[in-house]
């Protein structure tokens, strides 16, 4: 077996052990690479809590946020938090949303 093919098979086996479903795919699996941290090594937020603006003492004026408005309600997700989690599973009223960074 050529080295490249061996590495591809080895990698496919390793990611196969991760529990992801690779039985169907629309991209070549050998083009999927490890980014460093393992699965959930960067933990997504599943139970987000919120503060009113005047209570957000940890934020400074120049800090970046991702903002959204839905049915008159505004929500801000500081990049300061998002960089550590990359995904916030939240809800805007009845609408389930994923905030990603």
């Amino acid at each position: 077996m050529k080295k490249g093919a061996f590495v591809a098979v080895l990698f496919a086996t390793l990611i196969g052990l991760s529990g992801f479903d690779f039985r169907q795919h629309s991209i070549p699996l050998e083009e999927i690479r490890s980014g460093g941290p393992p699965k959930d090594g960067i933990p997504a937020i599943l139970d987000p809590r919120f503060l009113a603006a005047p209570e957000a003492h940890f934020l400074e004026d120049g800090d970046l946020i991702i903002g959204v408005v839905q049915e008159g309600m505004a929500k801000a997700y500081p990049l300061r938090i998002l960089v550590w989690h990359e995904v916030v599973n939240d809800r805007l009223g009845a609408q389930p949303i994923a905030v990603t960074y």
Partner: protein
Amino acid sequence: MYDRAIDDTELTFGVSGLLYESNVLFYDHQTESLWSQLKEEAVTGKMTGTRLRAIPSVTTTWKTWRERHPHTFVLSTQTGFRRDYSRMPYRAYAESPHPMFPVKHRDPRLSAKEKVLGISLGGIGKAYPLRLLRERRDPLEDRIGDTTVQVLYDPAADSAWVVDAKSGALLPSVVAYWFAWAAFHPESSVHGTSAEGGEEESR
């Protein structure tokens, strides 16, 4: 920002630790399918081919947002995890001119890590280099397909977003490095280049 309701099922997403074209792949806990953020669809597993619906959002400074939306809620640091939220990781990468990982499709129209505002509207992709938006005083008006849009630049955040010029409604867009936008939108035109296509620039 995306809708998590897919075919009447509410999915929750986690971080796979895997990348495709140097861009993150998320996975959903319900089916273990992988989802490409910039491709905006599932690329492996049972959900393969299922599109994500983008929800328009803006990236701006806390000050700008708070002044515009004084009653805003803000995500708390009580996340259930212990992290040092006073510190930003990844700074070295942001300052390096190269992608962190190999990218298969290089597009020489712009340099790899030039930041662009990317929008895909009715299947037509367009990228606006932030460099060109920074030079402007007024919003940029443009046409994408049948839609007249305004591109608004926020100097305090060095960020930008797009609204429908007629209704004022925010449209889904993303600020990304050029190499990442180009890898997922190879047909995209670039504002300010001769290969832009479409009508002449009116400025």
